[in-house]
Protein backbone atom coordinates (compact mmCIF):
# COMPACT_ATOMS: atom_id res chain seq x y z
CA UNK A 1 0.00 0.00 0.00
CA UNK A 2 2.71 2.47 1.03
CA UNK A 3 6.14 2.18 -0.47
CA UNK A 4 9.04 4.43 0.45
CA UNK A 5 12.03 4.03 -1.86
CA UNK A 6 15.49 5.30 -0.98
CA UNK A 7 14.47 8.65 0.40
CA UNK A 8 17.04 11.13 1.62
CA UNK A 9 16.03 14.04 3.78
CA UNK A 10 18.16 17.01 4.79
CA UNK A 11 17.66 19.75 7.34
CA UNK A 12 20.18 22.29 6.16
CA UNK A 13 23.48 20.46 6.34
CA UNK A 14 22.12 17.68 8.53
CA UNK A 15 21.48 14.48 6.64
CA UNK A 16 18.51 13.16 8.61
CA UNK A 17 17.41 10.19 6.50
CA UNK A 18 19.85 8.17 4.41
CA UNK A 19 18.39 5.96 1.69
CA UNK A 20 15.47 4.87 3.81
CA UNK A 21 13.18 2.32 2.17
CA UNK A 22 10.22 0.64 3.72
CA UNK A 23 6.97 -0.99 2.68
CA UNK A 24 3.64 -1.21 4.40
CA UNK A 25 1.22 -3.75 2.96
CA UNK A 26 -2.53 -3.45 3.14
CA UNK A 27 -3.95 -4.58 6.47
CA UNK A 28 -0.62 -4.60 8.30
CA UNK A 29 0.63 -2.91 11.41
CA UNK A 30 4.22 -1.94 10.68
CA UNK A 31 6.29 -0.38 13.40
CA UNK A 32 9.34 1.80 13.11
CA UNK A 33 11.66 1.59 16.09
CA UNK A 34 14.73 3.55 17.01
CA UNK A 35 16.33 5.81 19.56
CA UNK A 36 15.70 9.52 19.88
CA UNK A 37 16.90 11.38 16.83
CA UNK A 38 17.12 8.27 14.66
CA UNK A 39 14.73 9.78 12.12
CA UNK A 40 11.44 8.03 12.93
CA UNK A 41 9.38 11.21 13.09
CA UNK A 42 11.10 12.59 10.00
CA UNK A 43 10.17 9.42 8.12
CA UNK A 44 6.50 9.89 9.00
CA UNK A 45 6.55 13.60 8.26
CA UNK A 46 8.08 12.89 4.86
CA UNK A 47 5.51 10.20 4.15
CA UNK A 48 2.63 12.53 5.04
CA UNK A 49 4.05 15.43 3.03
CA UNK A 50 5.06 17.85 5.78
CA UNK A 51 8.69 17.48 4.71
CA UNK A 52 9.95 17.04 1.16
CA UNK A 53 12.72 14.51 0.54
CA UNK A 54 15.82 15.59 -1.39
CA UNK A 55 15.55 12.45 -3.47
CA UNK A 56 13.88 9.08 -3.57
CA UNK A 57 10.19 8.51 -4.02
CA UNK A 58 7.06 7.59 -2.14
CA UNK A 59 4.30 5.48 -3.66
CA UNK A 60 0.77 5.12 -2.36
CA UNK A 61 -1.05 2.21 -3.99
CA UNK A 62 1.49 2.36 -6.81
CA UNK A 63 0.99 6.07 -7.46
CA UNK A 64 3.96 8.41 -7.02
CA UNK A 65 3.02 10.97 -4.36
CA UNK A 66 6.50 12.38 -3.70
CA UNK A 67 5.52 15.83 -4.96
CA UNK A 68 1.93 15.71 -3.72
CA UNK A 69 1.05 18.25 -1.01
CA UNK A 70 0.14 17.16 2.50
CA UNK A 71 -3.51 18.10 2.10
CA UNK A 72 -3.79 16.16 -1.15
CA UNK A 73 -2.36 13.13 0.60
CA UNK A 74 -5.10 13.36 3.22
CA UNK A 75 -7.59 13.18 0.37
CA UNK A 76 -5.80 10.06 -0.93
CA UNK A 77 -6.25 8.27 2.38
CA UNK A 78 -3.25 9.11 4.55
CA UNK A 79 -3.93 10.29 8.08
CA UNK A 80 -1.17 11.24 10.46
CA UNK A 81 -1.36 11.52 14.24
CA UNK A 82 1.68 13.70 14.89
CA UNK A 83 4.15 13.45 17.71
CA UNK A 84 2.93 15.29 20.78
CA UNK A 85 -0.71 14.83 19.69
CA UNK A 86 -1.02 18.38 18.36
CA UNK A 87 -4.72 18.81 19.04
CA UNK A 88 -6.01 22.36 18.55
CA UNK A 89 -6.00 23.47 22.19
CA UNK A 90 -8.31 26.49 21.94
CA UNK A 91 -10.97 24.59 20.00
CA UNK A 92 -13.54 22.23 21.42
CA UNK A 93 -13.29 18.46 21.21
CA UNK A 94 -16.14 18.44 18.71
CA UNK A 95 -14.47 21.11 16.56
CA UNK A 96 -11.24 19.12 16.58
CA UNK A 97 -13.09 16.05 15.39
CA UNK A 98 -14.94 18.03 12.73
CA UNK A 99 -11.62 19.35 11.43
CA UNK A 100 -10.53 15.75 11.03
CA UNK A 101 -13.31 15.44 8.45
CA UNK A 102 -12.38 18.77 6.85
CA UNK A 103 -12.16 17.42 3.30
CA UNK A 104 -15.37 15.45 3.45
CA UNK A 105 -18.78 16.79 2.47
CA UNK A 106 -20.96 13.76 3.19
CA UNK A 107 -22.66 15.11 6.30
CA UNK A 108 -24.55 11.89 7.10
CA UNK A 109 -21.43 9.73 6.85
CA UNK A 110 -19.44 12.22 8.92
CA UNK A 111 -22.03 11.97 11.68
CA UNK A 112 -21.79 8.20 11.47
CA UNK A 113 -18.02 8.37 11.93
CA UNK A 114 -18.43 10.87 14.75
CA UNK A 115 -20.62 8.34 16.50
CA UNK A 116 -18.03 5.64 15.78
CA UNK A 117 -15.31 7.78 17.41
CA UNK A 118 -17.52 8.50 20.41
CA UNK A 119 -18.26 4.78 20.75
CA UNK A 120 -14.58 4.01 20.71
CA UNK A 121 -13.70 6.87 23.08
CA UNK A 122 -16.74 7.58 25.29
CA UNK A 123 -14.77 10.16 27.26
CA UNK A 124 -14.62 12.35 24.17
CA UNK A 125 -18.40 12.37 24.00
CA UNK A 126 -18.59 13.51 27.62
CA UNK A 127 -16.14 16.30 26.87
CA UNK A 128 -17.24 17.30 23.40
CA UNK A 129 -17.94 20.94 24.37
CA UNK A 130 -14.72 21.31 26.34
CA UNK A 131 -11.67 22.91 24.77
CA UNK A 132 -9.06 20.35 23.82
CA UNK A 133 -6.34 22.14 25.78
CA UNK A 134 -8.07 21.22 29.03
CA UNK A 135 -7.96 17.46 28.39
CA UNK A 136 -5.47 15.18 30.08
CA UNK A 137 -2.60 13.72 28.06
CA UNK A 138 -4.38 10.41 27.53
CA UNK A 139 -7.60 12.12 26.48
CA UNK A 140 -5.69 14.32 24.06
CA UNK A 141 -4.12 11.23 22.55
CA UNK A 142 -7.56 9.69 22.10
CA UNK A 143 -8.76 12.93 20.55
CA UNK A 144 -5.78 13.00 18.19
CA UNK A 145 -6.47 9.42 17.10
CA UNK A 146 -10.21 10.05 16.83
CA UNK A 147 -9.56 13.18 14.78
CA UNK A 148 -7.30 11.22 12.44
CA UNK A 149 -9.98 8.55 11.98
CA UNK A 150 -12.52 11.19 10.96
CA UNK A 151 -10.92 11.43 7.52
CA UNK A 152 -11.62 7.71 6.98
CA UNK A 153 -7.99 6.90 6.32
CA UNK A 154 -6.81 3.89 4.41
CA UNK A 155 -3.48 4.16 6.19
CA UNK A 156 -2.92 5.71 9.60
CA UNK A 157 0.44 7.02 10.81
CA UNK A 158 0.85 7.10 14.57
CA UNK A 159 3.82 8.94 16.05
CA UNK A 160 4.59 7.81 19.60
CA UNK A 161 1.02 7.42 20.78
CA UNK A 162 2.20 6.14 24.16
CA UNK A 163 4.49 9.06 24.92
CA UNK A 164 3.99 10.47 28.40
CA UNK A 165 1.08 8.22 29.28
CA UNK A 166 0.59 6.14 32.42
CA UNK A 167 1.28 2.41 31.93
CA UNK A 168 -2.38 1.46 32.16
CA UNK A 169 -3.26 4.01 29.50
CA UNK A 170 -0.45 2.73 27.31
CA UNK A 171 -2.05 -0.72 27.39
CA UNK A 172 -5.37 0.79 26.45
CA UNK A 173 -3.97 2.84 23.57
CA UNK A 174 -2.23 -0.19 22.12
CA UNK A 175 -5.35 -2.31 22.29
CA UNK A 176 -7.23 0.51 20.54
CA UNK A 177 -4.57 0.59 17.82
CA UNK A 178 -4.91 -3.15 17.34
CA UNK A 179 -8.65 -2.79 17.16
CA UNK A 180 -8.48 0.00 14.57
CA UNK A 181 -6.24 -2.22 12.48
CA UNK A 182 -8.63 -5.16 12.76
CA UNK A 183 -11.46 -3.02 11.45
CA UNK A 184 -9.53 -2.53 8.23
CA UNK A 185 -7.08 0.36 8.61
CA UNK A 186 -3.44 -0.16 7.74
CA UNK A 187 -1.10 1.27 10.35
CA UNK A 188 2.44 2.61 10.39
CA UNK A 189 3.45 3.06 14.00
CA UNK A 190 6.46 4.89 15.38
CA UNK A 191 7.30 3.97 18.94
CA UNK A 192 9.91 4.17 21.63
CA UNK A 193 8.09 1.53 23.61
CA UNK A 194 9.57 -1.27 21.54
CA UNK A 195 8.21 -4.24 23.45
CA UNK A 196 4.61 -3.04 23.26
CA UNK A 197 4.96 -2.09 19.61
CA UNK A 198 6.49 -5.42 18.62
CA UNK A 199 3.69 -7.29 20.34
CA UNK A 200 1.04 -5.85 18.05
CA UNK A 201 3.11 -5.29 14.89
CA UNK A 202 3.15 -7.67 11.96
CA UNK A 203 6.49 -6.34 10.81
CA UNK A 204 9.06 -3.90 12.09
CA UNK A 205 11.95 -1.74 10.93
CA UNK A 206 14.74 -0.39 13.08
CA UNK A 207 16.19 3.02 12.31
CA UNK A 208 19.59 4.10 13.54
CA UNK A 209 20.99 7.58 12.81
CA UNK A 210 18.93 7.92 9.67
CA UNK A 211 19.35 4.46 8.18
CA UNK A 212 17.30 1.28 8.37
CA UNK A 213 19.58 -1.25 10.06
CA UNK A 214 17.21 -4.12 10.63
CA UNK A 215 13.81 -5.37 9.57
CA UNK A 216 11.68 -8.43 10.04
CA UNK A 217 8.46 -9.69 11.53
CA UNK A 218 7.49 -8.57 14.99
CA UNK A 219 8.35 -11.88 16.62
CA UNK A 220 11.67 -12.17 14.75
CA UNK A 221 12.80 -8.83 16.06
CA UNK A 222 11.63 -9.65 19.55
CA UNK A 223 13.96 -12.58 19.52
CA UNK A 224 16.86 -10.69 17.99
CA UNK A 225 19.77 -10.31 20.35
CA UNK A 226 20.63 -6.77 19.19
CA UNK A 227 17.09 -5.55 19.68
CA UNK A 228 16.81 -7.07 23.10
CA UNK A 229 19.98 -5.33 24.17
CA UNK A 230 19.25 -1.99 22.59
CA UNK A 231 15.53 -1.51 23.06
CA UNK A 232 14.02 -4.13 25.30
CA UNK A 233 16.28 -3.75 28.30
CA UNK A 234 18.16 -7.05 28.23
Amino acid sequence: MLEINNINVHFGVIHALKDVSLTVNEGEIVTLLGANGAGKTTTLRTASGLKKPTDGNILLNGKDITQTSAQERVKMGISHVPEGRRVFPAMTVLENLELGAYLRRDRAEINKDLKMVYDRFPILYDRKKQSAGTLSGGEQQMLAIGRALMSRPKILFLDEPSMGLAPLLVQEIFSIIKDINETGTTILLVEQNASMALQIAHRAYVLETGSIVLSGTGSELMQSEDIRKAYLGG
Partner: protein
Amino acid sequence: MEQLIQQIINGISLGSIYALIALGYTMVYGIIKLINFAHGDIYMLGAYIGYFCMTTLKLGFLPSLIAAMLICTLIGMAVEKIAYKPLRNATRIAVLITAIGVSLFIEYGTMFFVGAGVRTYPEITGLLAKRFQFGSMVVSMQQIMIVATTIVLMTILQIIVRKTRIGKAMRAVSLDKDAAQLMGINVNTTISFTFALGSALAGAAGILVGVYYNSINPLMGVMPGLKAFVAAVLGGIGIIPGAMIGGYLIGIVEVFVSGYGSSMYREAVVFAILILILIVKPAGILGKNIREKV
Protein backbone atom coordinates in the same frame (compact mmCIF):
# COMPACT_ATOMS: atom_id res chain seq x y z
CA MET B 1 -22.45 64.71 32.83
CA GLU B 2 -23.84 65.44 29.41
CA GLN B 3 -20.40 66.31 28.22
CA LEU B 4 -19.13 62.98 29.50
CA ILE B 5 -21.78 61.07 27.59
CA GLN B 6 -21.06 63.14 24.52
CA GLN B 7 -17.38 62.23 24.76
CA ILE B 8 -18.19 58.56 25.16
CA ILE B 9 -20.39 58.69 22.06
CA ASN B 10 -17.61 60.35 20.09
CA GLY B 11 -15.13 57.84 21.49
CA ILE B 12 -17.25 54.90 20.42
CA SER B 13 -17.50 56.27 16.88
CA LEU B 14 -13.76 56.70 16.63
CA GLY B 15 -13.17 53.41 18.42
CA SER B 16 -15.27 51.59 15.82
CA ILE B 17 -12.83 52.69 13.16
CA TYR B 18 -9.83 51.54 15.20
CA ALA B 19 -11.54 48.27 16.00
CA LEU B 20 -12.22 47.56 12.32
CA ILE B 21 -8.58 48.17 11.42
CA ALA B 22 -7.26 46.34 14.49
CA LEU B 23 -9.18 43.20 13.49
CA GLY B 24 -7.14 42.90 10.32
CA TYR B 25 -3.88 43.34 12.23
CA THR B 26 -4.82 40.77 14.78
CA MET B 27 -6.11 38.13 12.36
CA VAL B 28 -3.04 38.36 10.17
CA TYR B 29 -0.78 38.24 13.20
CA GLY B 30 -2.71 35.28 14.53
CA ILE B 31 -2.19 33.30 11.37
CA ILE B 32 1.33 34.16 10.16
CA LYS B 33 2.79 36.08 13.13
CA LEU B 34 3.33 39.13 10.95
CA ILE B 35 2.61 42.72 11.94
CA ASN B 36 1.30 43.79 8.58
CA PHE B 37 2.38 47.41 8.52
CA ALA B 38 0.75 47.86 5.13
CA HIS B 39 -2.63 47.33 6.72
CA GLY B 40 -3.22 51.01 7.49
CA ASP B 41 -2.63 51.76 3.82
CA ILE B 42 -5.34 49.35 2.76
CA TYR B 43 -7.62 51.46 4.94
CA MET B 44 -6.43 54.56 3.10
CA LEU B 45 -7.16 52.87 -0.23
CA GLY B 46 -10.65 52.05 1.05
CA ALA B 47 -11.19 55.75 1.68
CA TYR B 48 -10.04 56.63 -1.85
CA ILE B 49 -12.09 53.91 -3.50
CA GLY B 50 -15.12 55.17 -1.59
CA TYR B 51 -14.31 58.70 -2.68
CA PHE B 52 -14.20 57.80 -6.36
CA CYS B 53 -17.34 55.72 -6.10
CA MET B 54 -19.22 58.60 -4.54
CA THR B 55 -17.85 61.44 -6.67
CA THR B 56 -16.92 60.09 -10.11
CA LEU B 57 -19.44 57.25 -10.20
CA LYS B 58 -22.06 59.08 -8.13
CA LEU B 59 -22.89 55.95 -6.17
CA GLY B 60 -24.70 56.02 -2.85
CA PHE B 61 -23.08 55.19 0.46
CA LEU B 62 -23.97 51.50 0.61
CA PRO B 63 -22.83 50.54 -2.91
CA SER B 64 -19.66 52.55 -2.33
CA LEU B 65 -19.05 50.71 0.95
CA ILE B 66 -19.44 47.36 -0.75
CA ALA B 67 -17.22 48.40 -3.65
CA ALA B 68 -14.51 49.64 -1.27
CA MET B 69 -14.62 46.41 0.69
CA LEU B 70 -14.49 44.23 -2.42
CA ILE B 71 -11.62 46.10 -4.06
CA CYS B 72 -9.66 46.21 -0.79
CA THR B 73 -10.18 42.47 -0.47
CA LEU B 74 -8.58 41.95 -3.85
CA ILE B 75 -5.72 44.34 -3.07
CA GLY B 76 -5.09 42.66 0.28
CA MET B 77 -4.96 39.23 -1.35
CA ALA B 78 -2.65 40.53 -4.06
CA VAL B 79 -0.28 42.05 -1.48
CA GLU B 80 -0.16 38.75 0.36
CA LYS B 81 0.47 36.76 -2.80
CA ILE B 82 3.09 39.06 -4.27
CA ALA B 83 4.93 40.29 -1.19
CA TYR B 84 4.48 37.84 1.69
CA LYS B 85 3.85 34.41 0.22
CA PRO B 86 7.32 34.07 -1.33
CA LEU B 87 8.72 34.74 2.16
CA ARG B 88 6.72 32.05 3.90
CA ASN B 89 9.85 30.32 5.19
CA ALA B 90 11.95 33.45 5.62
CA THR B 91 12.81 34.96 8.98
CA ARG B 92 10.15 37.09 10.60
CA ILE B 93 12.24 40.22 10.42
CA ALA B 94 12.56 39.84 6.64
CA VAL B 95 8.78 39.73 6.29
CA LEU B 96 8.37 42.66 8.66
CA ILE B 97 10.77 44.79 6.62
CA THR B 98 8.88 43.76 3.50
CA ALA B 99 5.65 44.92 5.14
CA ILE B 100 7.16 48.35 5.72
CA GLY B 101 8.26 48.37 2.09
CA VAL B 102 4.77 47.48 0.91
CA SER B 103 3.37 50.23 3.10
CA LEU B 104 5.64 52.88 1.57
CA PHE B 105 4.94 51.51 -1.91
CA ILE B 106 1.19 51.83 -1.47
CA GLU B 107 1.43 55.30 0.08
CA TYR B 108 3.64 56.82 -2.57
CA GLY B 109 2.10 54.78 -5.36
CA THR B 110 -1.25 56.28 -4.44
CA MET B 111 0.32 59.72 -4.31
CA PHE B 112 1.62 59.20 -7.83
CA PHE B 113 -1.87 58.50 -9.14
CA VAL B 114 -4.07 60.84 -7.14
CA GLY B 115 -1.62 63.51 -6.00
CA ALA B 116 -0.43 64.31 -2.53
CA GLY B 117 -3.15 66.81 -1.77
CA VAL B 118 -6.14 66.44 0.49
CA ARG B 119 -9.43 65.47 -1.11
CA THR B 120 -12.79 66.26 0.33
CA TYR B 121 -15.61 63.77 0.46
CA PRO B 122 -18.85 65.01 -1.09
CA GLU B 123 -21.25 66.76 1.22
CA ILE B 124 -23.59 64.24 2.74
CA THR B 125 -27.23 65.07 2.26
CA GLY B 126 -30.53 63.50 3.16
CA LEU B 127 -30.92 60.92 5.88
CA LEU B 128 -27.19 60.60 6.62
CA ALA B 129 -26.89 64.32 7.35
CA LYS B 130 -29.43 64.18 10.16
CA ARG B 131 -28.38 65.10 13.66
CA PHE B 132 -30.18 64.34 16.87
CA GLN B 133 -30.09 66.79 19.73
CA PHE B 134 -30.56 65.66 23.31
CA GLY B 135 -30.12 68.68 25.57
CA SER B 136 -26.59 69.76 24.82
CA MET B 137 -25.62 66.38 23.36
CA VAL B 138 -25.50 65.79 19.64
CA VAL B 139 -25.52 62.41 17.97
CA SER B 140 -25.08 62.55 14.24
CA MET B 141 -26.57 60.03 11.87
CA GLN B 142 -23.03 59.42 10.65
CA GLN B 143 -21.96 58.27 14.09
CA ILE B 144 -24.92 55.93 14.29
CA MET B 145 -24.05 54.64 10.85
CA ILE B 146 -20.40 54.06 11.77
CA VAL B 147 -21.29 52.14 14.89
CA ALA B 148 -24.08 50.19 13.18
CA THR B 149 -21.89 49.25 10.21
CA THR B 150 -19.13 48.16 12.57
CA ILE B 151 -21.46 46.02 14.64
CA VAL B 152 -22.92 44.36 11.55
CA LEU B 153 -19.44 43.65 10.13
CA MET B 154 -18.15 42.30 13.43
CA THR B 155 -21.15 40.03 13.77
CA ILE B 156 -20.62 38.70 10.26
CA LEU B 157 -16.94 38.21 11.05
CA GLN B 158 -17.73 36.28 14.22
CA ILE B 159 -20.13 34.03 12.34
CA ILE B 160 -17.53 33.38 9.65
CA VAL B 161 -14.79 32.60 12.15
CA ARG B 162 -16.91 30.53 14.55
CA LYS B 163 -19.32 28.70 12.31
CA THR B 164 -18.05 28.29 8.78
CA ARG B 165 -15.66 25.71 7.42
CA ILE B 166 -13.10 28.28 6.29
CA GLY B 167 -13.37 30.04 9.66
CA LYS B 168 -12.57 26.85 11.48
CA ALA B 169 -9.68 26.33 9.09
CA MET B 170 -8.43 29.83 9.94
CA ARG B 171 -8.45 29.08 13.64
CA ALA B 172 -6.80 25.72 13.09
CA VAL B 173 -4.01 27.23 10.97
CA SER B 174 -3.41 29.97 13.53
CA LEU B 175 -3.14 27.38 16.30
CA ASP B 176 -0.95 24.82 14.55
CA LYS B 177 0.03 25.00 10.89
CA ASP B 178 1.42 21.47 10.61
CA ALA B 179 -1.53 19.86 12.32
CA ALA B 180 -3.86 21.91 10.11
CA GLN B 181 -2.14 20.55 7.00
CA LEU B 182 -2.61 17.05 8.33
CA MET B 183 -6.36 17.71 8.44
CA GLY B 184 -6.19 18.46 4.73
CA ILE B 185 -6.46 22.22 5.18
CA ASN B 186 -4.79 24.24 2.45
CA VAL B 187 -2.69 26.65 4.51
CA ASN B 188 -1.99 29.08 1.67
CA THR B 189 -5.66 29.47 0.76
CA THR B 190 -6.51 30.00 4.40
CA ILE B 191 -3.85 32.69 4.84
CA SER B 192 -5.06 34.40 1.69
CA PHE B 193 -8.62 34.33 3.01
CA THR B 194 -7.47 35.90 6.27
CA PHE B 195 -5.89 38.79 4.38
CA ALA B 196 -9.12 39.10 2.38
CA LEU B 197 -11.26 39.42 5.50
CA GLY B 198 -8.91 41.87 7.22
CA SER B 199 -8.62 44.03 4.12
CA ALA B 200 -12.38 44.14 3.62
CA LEU B 201 -12.79 45.46 7.17
CA ALA B 202 -10.00 48.02 6.65
CA GLY B 203 -11.68 49.14 3.42
CA ALA B 204 -14.95 49.64 5.28
CA ALA B 205 -13.15 51.66 7.95
CA GLY B 206 -11.62 53.84 5.24
CA ILE B 207 -14.88 54.86 3.66
CA LEU B 208 -16.52 55.38 7.06
CA VAL B 209 -13.76 57.77 8.05
CA GLY B 210 -14.06 59.57 4.73
CA VAL B 211 -17.74 60.16 5.33
CA TYR B 212 -17.17 61.15 8.97
CA TYR B 213 -14.15 63.44 8.72
CA ASN B 214 -14.62 64.46 5.06
CA SER B 215 -10.97 64.85 4.17
CA ILE B 216 -8.65 62.12 2.98
CA ASN B 217 -5.01 62.02 1.86
CA PRO B 218 -2.53 59.31 0.82
CA LEU B 219 -0.78 59.29 4.21
CA MET B 220 -3.95 59.15 6.27
CA GLY B 221 -3.43 55.45 6.98
CA VAL B 222 -0.19 55.83 8.90
CA MET B 223 -1.42 57.13 12.24
CA PRO B 224 -4.71 55.20 12.49
CA GLY B 225 -2.78 52.13 11.38
CA LEU B 226 -0.32 52.50 14.24
CA LYS B 227 -3.09 53.23 16.73
CA ALA B 228 -5.08 50.22 15.58
CA PHE B 229 -1.90 48.20 16.06
CA VAL B 230 -1.73 49.52 19.63
CA ALA B 231 -5.40 48.56 20.02
CA ALA B 232 -4.66 45.03 18.82
CA VAL B 233 -1.76 44.68 21.26
CA LEU B 234 -3.85 46.17 24.07
CA GLY B 235 -6.63 43.64 23.55
CA GLY B 236 -4.19 40.78 23.04
CA ILE B 237 -2.72 40.36 19.58
CA GLY B 238 -4.08 37.38 17.71
CA ILE B 239 -7.35 37.46 19.64
CA ILE B 240 -10.33 38.70 17.66
CA PRO B 241 -12.54 39.96 20.53
CA GLY B 242 -9.39 41.56 21.96
CA ALA B 243 -9.05 43.74 18.86
CA MET B 244 -12.62 44.93 19.27
CA ILE B 245 -12.16 45.80 22.94
CA GLY B 246 -8.77 47.41 22.29
CA GLY B 247 -10.18 49.46 19.42
CA TYR B 248 -13.00 50.90 21.47
CA LEU B 249 -10.74 51.58 24.46
CA ILE B 250 -8.20 53.44 22.35
CA GLY B 251 -10.96 55.42 20.67
CA ILE B 252 -12.50 56.46 23.98
CA VAL B 253 -9.14 57.26 25.59
CA GLU B 254 -8.16 59.41 22.63
CA VAL B 255 -11.38 61.38 22.67
CA PHE B 256 -11.16 61.88 26.44
CA VAL B 257 -7.61 63.13 26.25
CA SER B 258 -8.63 65.59 23.52
CA GLY B 259 -11.75 66.64 25.35
CA TYR B 260 -10.51 67.00 28.90
CA GLY B 261 -6.79 67.38 28.47
CA SER B 262 -5.12 68.70 25.43
CA SER B 263 -5.56 67.26 21.96
CA MET B 264 -1.81 67.69 21.50
CA TYR B 265 -1.27 64.79 23.87
CA ARG B 266 -3.78 62.35 22.44
CA GLU B 267 -1.23 60.48 20.34
CA ALA B 268 1.34 60.48 23.12
CA VAL B 269 -1.20 58.92 25.47
CA VAL B 270 -2.06 56.17 22.98
CA PHE B 271 1.57 55.21 22.61
CA ALA B 272 2.12 55.50 26.35
CA ILE B 273 -0.61 52.86 26.65
CA LEU B 274 1.40 50.64 24.31
CA ILE B 275 4.50 51.00 26.46
CA LEU B 276 2.51 50.43 29.62
CA ILE B 277 0.75 47.32 28.38
CA LEU B 278 4.02 45.86 27.16
CA ILE B 279 5.48 46.34 30.63
CA VAL B 280 2.48 45.30 32.70
CA LYS B 281 0.70 42.65 30.64
CA PRO B 282 2.44 41.99 27.33
CA ALA B 283 -0.13 39.37 26.32
CA GLY B 284 -2.84 42.05 26.34
CA ILE B 285 -6.17 42.28 28.14
CA LEU B 286 -7.58 38.99 26.86
CA GLY B 287 -4.23 37.32 26.31
CA LYS B 288 -3.28 34.27 28.25
CA ASN B 289 -0.82 31.53 27.67
CA ILE B 290 -2.61 28.31 26.95
CA ARG B 291 -0.38 25.70 28.38
CA GLU B 292 -0.45 22.32 26.81
CA LYS B 293 -0.54 19.37 29.07
CA VAL B 294 2.03 16.70 28.50
